[in-house]
């Protein structure tokens, strides 16, 4: 891997952030974490990640809004969005994918599978 892929992990649950930060770093990603929607918006612009791992239910701005924001800005046109959410209804998933996300992963997930899917997406 020449240049590490930049990943932004957005979730309001501190333990999930803790585990994902460790996991992604171990797998060679350049990791940034955001604890809520507002933080995520700021980091997005500063950091221009290659992929955003995005929770949906958050206290301030929800994941759908962040995804729409990414898809509507030319700056992030190559940025991939992966939703990870406890919301598991078909309608939720469809909405996520319709907004332009590449993947929708329901919680709980297996670490291996998550890493595998994200790597496949980026290659």
């Amino acid at each position, binding site marked *: 891997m020449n240049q590490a892929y930049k990943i932004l992990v957005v979730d*309001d*649950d501190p*333990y*999930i952030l*803790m585990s994902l930060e460790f996991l992604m770093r171990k797998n060679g990603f350049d990791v940034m974490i955001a604890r809520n929607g507002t933080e995520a918006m700021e980091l997005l612009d500063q950091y221009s990640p290659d992929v955003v791992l995005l929770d949906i239910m958050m*206290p301030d701005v929800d994941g759908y809004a962040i995804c729409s924001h990414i898809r509507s800005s030319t700056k992030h046109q190559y940025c991939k969005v992966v939703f990870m959410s*406890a*919301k*598991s209804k078909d309608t939720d998933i469809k909405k996520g994918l319709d907004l332009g996300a590449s993947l929708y992963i329901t919680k709980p997930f297996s*670490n291996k599978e998550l890493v595998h899917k994200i790597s496949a997406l980026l290659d």
Partner: protein
Amino acid sequence: MNSWIIIGAALFYLILLFAVAYFAEYQQKKGNSIINNGYVYALSLAVYCTAWTYYGSVGRATTNGITFSAIYIGPTIAAACFIPVLRKIIRITKAQRINSIADFISTRYGKNATLAAVVSIFCVVGVLPYIALQLKAITLSLSVLSSDVLNDITGNTSLYITVGLAFFIVVFGTRSVDATEKHEGLVAAVAFESLIKLFAFIAGGLFVTYGIFNGFDDIFKQASNHTTLKNLFTINGEHGLTDWFATICLSMMAVLFLPRQFQVGVIENVKEEHLKKATWLFPLYLLVINIFVIPIAFGGTLFYQNQTIDADTYVLAIPMSNQQTALSLLIFIGGFSAAASMIMVETIALSTMVSNNLVMPFLFSQPSFANQIDSSIGKVILYIRRYSIVMILLLAYLYDKMVAEYFSLVSIGLISFTAVAQFAPAIIGGIYWKTASKNGAMAGILLGFGIWFYTLIIPAMVDVKLIQESIVISGPWNISWLKPTALFGLTGLNNITHALYWSLLFNISAYILFSLYSKLNAKEVYQAELFVDADKHVSENYSVIWRGTAYMPELFMLLQNFLGKERASNLLQNYANRHQINLNHNGVADPRMVTFSEKILAGVIGSASARIMVSKVTKEEEVSINEVFKILHESQQLMELNKELRKKSIELTKATEQLKQANAQLMSMDELKDEFLYTVTHELRTPLTSIRSLSEILVEHPDIDEDQRINFVTAIARETERLSHLITKVLNLEKYESGKQKLHLTSFDIGALLKHLTEEYQHLAIQKQISMSCKIPNSMLLVFADADLIQQVIINLLSNAIKFTPEYGCIDITIREESEYLFVSVKDTGKGIPEEEVEHIFDKFFQARNQTIKKPEGTGLGLAICKRIIDMHKGEIYVENHPGKGAIFTFTIPTFVRNESLIAHNESSL
């Protein structure tokens, strides 16, 4: 008064009427019909009040006292049967496209052309004097206004006015060749005139009563001391009462069957619901317009003590004598209104009858005319109607000039009333009695009219010296029981009552006898069925008794000639579509199309002429009377079947609706359950995610450094605890909701519990710099409740308060007792609850439902559990919300005393 002012005012008023009529037609074109309104309908019925009411009632009241009121009591009684009788007549008229009262009678009795002609002639003969009377009233009022003007000028003025009215009627009365079409502008103008005459007459009444005298009391007091007037307060003698009663009956029939009343009440009726308003509004109108009749009559008599002034003109003469120029003009215009509206409607009605039932059948019977009918026939019909209008008005004008001066206003009106009363048996019998026959109707009407003529017109002719006096004095050929005024020796009644008695007696008897002893033909049987059972036949078209061969192109051509190509093709096409009739069936017309075409044509030229025209373009076959009965019988069965089916279908629809509702209810319950399950699993997924992810890391990376490992393991432990916490709560809630939870009731001091818990949570508050205080009286506050559960509620409220109160805020816990309840409140200074969420905060998992914005931490079950616990204790929990300032959560719990019932309940369930 200057006659030019008068002419100017009349002219101005005519122009105003034109404007009203034009406005109405303009509005109708824009889609909002003015006459489609119950009030306008009731006002148009008030065309009943003619100049005769306006001037003549006063005249009659000066000589006969309150007997004049019979003419308004009759219609008031008749108004009560508007709904049953008039509604039925309206329904039949609309279904059969009838366009006049003569058409109604002839259609009922097998579409007989002779009958139509006879009724039309009698209408003209009976009513023409009445129109003349209106012209006379106008002349009379003009002469009062300008007594110094030369006679021939006023005479000419009345001619000008007649011409102006003729012009108005021609313009607004012959717009469409289809006589069943509403005369929008004309009816609007008539309703407007009804308002004007009412207003003007009341203005005159007020002037006499309060301007000349000091109110009703004053007039009546003076009248009771007057030599002649004091006799007018009662109805005198045996015959006086009989005459009074006869006049009431007479006017009851008149208000329904005068051609103009039939025109506005039936032909021009837009919706039958308008009858409901008319039932009370029309009698009210009559009452109001008559309030001042007696005061004016008495006032006039008192005012002109030693002068001879025609009492008919009092209402106008009194303001004139008092130099009230403006008021006089207004009253003149009101009287003019009364006369003009009557002339307009009566002329339209008569002209339709004359053209459809007299002129047209005559023309159609001339081969040279009938064989040359082309598309110009519509125009020809309109011209015939216009000429009829002009002719009728001209005749009325001549009658006024030559004959009318010999009669007082009232007598002519009642003579007309008696004439149209002759139609009552044929019409009323016709809509309720199936056996009634054409011969019966013809015999009744001819006989009734003959007697009317003999007993009322002959004496009148004697009066004007047209006939020798001997006939009245000693009877024709000296046969005394044939004296026109005392037929069969009947004396003591006034001439109207006498005529009414004999004419109706012979009319009804002949009608019944001839009906019973004459054979009905097939057409009569069929029409009788359509009229008597009108309600059944209005919408359905099962029974068509036409048989023969007809071709669509010929039928179409016929209609097209009368109605124009576009209208004819629209009508036929719509009807065919509605009844699923194939129009291109080798050009052969369906019998229903023939019947329908005839009906449409009837609207234009009357049913009798329409019958003739249709029979000309088709080859008809005789339908025997037995076949008619058979068809009617079958259609009867079909209708009953259809009714039954419709009832069933309504029942089915209802049942379906109920099922749908039940289903929807089940679905929504199901949805709620799904929602709950979804939310629970959703809440479980979050801790599970970190537990799974972290433990996988620990397995994959045994070399992880110690600090990290401890962090991860601690996190796993915490999240596991969160999971089990959540599961316990869900299970608890389920237990409370299903009623499986038993209350372990003990009596305890809730005050002490509150103080204890406040102390316990003080350290959390101190961490956030929140001042938390518990203001509770020291006395024992005993409750009988489940202490553990109540503790849970308090803890939940306290921890929520701490969670939502920002730093340096404060929390107050209070308790108060009120009507055997304790109110425990926790007040915080947090943000409060968004308005839209207040009503949901006690719902379980409210925070997760259909939302993507996460609410502050918590399981979303706390308040739901609190509510269940408090419910179980027969208390209440609620929140007083102040968005931005904080919230006060309060629960109530019955005091110890109050809760004894609960104890009993709990013991019994143990």
